[in-house]
């Protein structure tokens, strides 16, 4: 069997058993990247030499007995994590020359555990998007194809590069960030698993900010177990992030075999939106049946304000983004366009440096915060956000976890749904509510559409109860037995 087909857990075992070296494993992945990245564009900046150096260190650690379960594991780093000495672009032109002199906490933890970084993965510009088409470094191609079609599909977004890399075997796993669905939706589109942990679980220090009150880092990998192994390392209190929670990190892999017997699973009736693809609804019903068979109690619940989630999100996230992105002004770092005075320099720099979607969101965000509109838009959205959180809190008095579809459709074609921004935003309809409430949520591949594309189910848990999310996700994974592979993949 090709080294590339090992899961992270299997690779870890093989590395520790000395059956394979980190250098061999890394070399295989570097070759895979060389072969397929020109087509998929999953990496903005591959770093093969750095990866090999890290692999050599990993081999030394494996020999000396100081290795961790992630030592020697080649991963892709979403290019939103600042990496010391390695260019970090956030997929934006405005950061094209930016080389951070510091390392994000999450990437530092992975490094310290001995993980090998293959490069910086592509994404939607500043993580704003659901299809990875807004990247200034070109779109990412989904390695999956519709049966009998060669049309290019999007990998979802914003962590589209991470998702495509993992699915196509260009990386064993990847880091992602999720603001409104940016880990879960691309995971669903590419047939892999990914978890957005509880807000505050992973430090945001050193992650280029999109919307501060929503951004959360998380892993993306081929199995639920792989995700648990990664989150074990990525999670944890960080005094450099005031919103980081000082909560103990359990060994998430321990939760995988808990099963769901006796667990109460909520099915929110409001997620059965009019016009939802019947295939998606059928998969959801299948998921319900699997959990019931595994001994869970399925309970009908109500999240009445869920339907306002997207509207709230498209006020709150742009508002925070408009402010977070004010620092890109051509003064201290990044690209600059000359101007005849300071204001002219700002306006030209930002006009040239930001793509259309980022500009739209900055504009909307600026507008909803501006004098005379704050109460009607931003304050109102914050109040509805409080109601959405309350919905979840009430639901979690009755149930242990909630099951929903991850996305309203399978991966769509490059160029589809691009007529207006709102159609594109609807992709996040199922993922946004958990982001607004700050609760953990995972997407697990659960089946294929009639066109042969992967579909995901989403498991939502209580604040800081990722363990139940992993337990339920593992049960779904086991029942689904998803083993389909994308057409484009390194072998």
């Amino acid at each position, binding site marked *: 069997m090709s080294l590339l087909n090992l899961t992270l857990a299997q690779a870890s075992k093989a590395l520790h058993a000395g059956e394979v070296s980190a250098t061999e494993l890394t070399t295989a992945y570097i070759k895979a990247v060389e072969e397929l990245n020109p087509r998929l564009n999953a990496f903005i900046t591959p770093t093969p030499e750095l990866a090999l150096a890290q692999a050599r260190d990993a081999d030394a650690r494996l020999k000396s007995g100081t290795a961790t379960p992630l030592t020697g594991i080649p991963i892709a780093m979403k290019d939103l994590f600042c990496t010391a000495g390695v260019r970090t672009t956030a997929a934006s032109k405005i950061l094209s020359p930016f080389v951070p002199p510091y390392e994000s906490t999450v990437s530092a933890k992975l490094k310290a555990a001995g993980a090998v970084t293959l490069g910086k993965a592509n994404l939607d510009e500043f993580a704003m998007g659901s299809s990875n088409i807004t990247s200034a470094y070109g779109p990412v191609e989904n390695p999956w194809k519709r049966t009998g079609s060669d049309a290019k599909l999007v990998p979802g977004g914003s962590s589209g590069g991470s998702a495509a890399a993992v699915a196509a075997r260009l990386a064993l796993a990847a880091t992602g960030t999720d603001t409104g669905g940016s880990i879960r939706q691309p995971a669903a589109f590419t047939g892999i698993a990914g978890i957005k942990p509880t*807000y505050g679980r992973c430090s945001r220090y050193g992650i280029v900010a999109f919307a501060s009150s929503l951004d959360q880092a998380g892993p993306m990998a081929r199995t639920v177990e792989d995700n648990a192994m990664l989150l074990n390392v990525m999670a944890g209190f960080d005094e450099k992030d005031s919103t980081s929670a000082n909560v103990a990190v359990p060994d998430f892999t321990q939760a995988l075999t808990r099963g769901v017997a006796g667990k109460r699973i909520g099915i929110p009736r409001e997620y059965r939106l009019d016009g939802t693809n019947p295939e998606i609804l059928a998969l959801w019903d299948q998921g319900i049946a699997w959990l019931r068979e595994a001994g869970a109690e399925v309970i009908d619940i109500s999240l009445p304000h869920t339907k306002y989630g*997207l509207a709230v999100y498209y006020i709150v996230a742009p508002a925070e983004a408009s402010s977070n992105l004010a620092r890109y002004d051509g003064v201290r770092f990044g690209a600059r366009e000359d101007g005849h005075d300071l204001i*002219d320099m700002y306006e030209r720099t930002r006009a040239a440096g930001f793509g259309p979607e980022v500009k739209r969101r900055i504009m909307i965000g600026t507008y909803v915060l501006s004098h005379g509109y704050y109460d009607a838009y931003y304050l109102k959205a914050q109040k509805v956000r409080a109601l959405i959180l309350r919905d979840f809190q009430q639901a979690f008095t009755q149930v242990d976890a909630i099951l929903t579809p991850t996305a309203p459709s399978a991966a769509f074609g490059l160029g589809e749904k691009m007529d207006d921004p709102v159609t594109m935003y609807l992709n996040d309809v199922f993922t946004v509510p958990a982001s607004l409430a700050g609760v953990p949520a995972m997407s697990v591949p659960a089946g294929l559409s009639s066109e042969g594309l992967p579909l995901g189910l989403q498991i939502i848990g209580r604040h800081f109860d990722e363990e139940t999310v992993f337990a339920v996700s593992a049960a779904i994974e086991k029942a689904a037995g998803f083993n389909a592979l994308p057409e484009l993949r390194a072998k």
Partner: protein
Amino acid sequence: MSLDAATVRRIARLARIRVDDAEVETLQSELNAILGYVEQLAEVNVEGITPLSGGAQMALRHRPDQLSDGGIAEQILANAPDRVGNFFAVPKVVE
């Protein structure tokens, strides 16, 4: 509430993004589509609801008053598009 072209220009100026006339038109229709979509929040009754501004529900942690950073001027300036000595440089501001 619907944005007119003048408002689009004002917002662009506030956001320090240069827009040309053609862009104003596109932005106007796109922004209005988004605003039209979020209009649905008007129907939600939020009387007596405390706005939720953050993602985490806890109190702010404090750090001790210790000198633990700085003294890295070269790193601070390493990415600067323009500098004069150890200062950042920008087009001259006339006050």
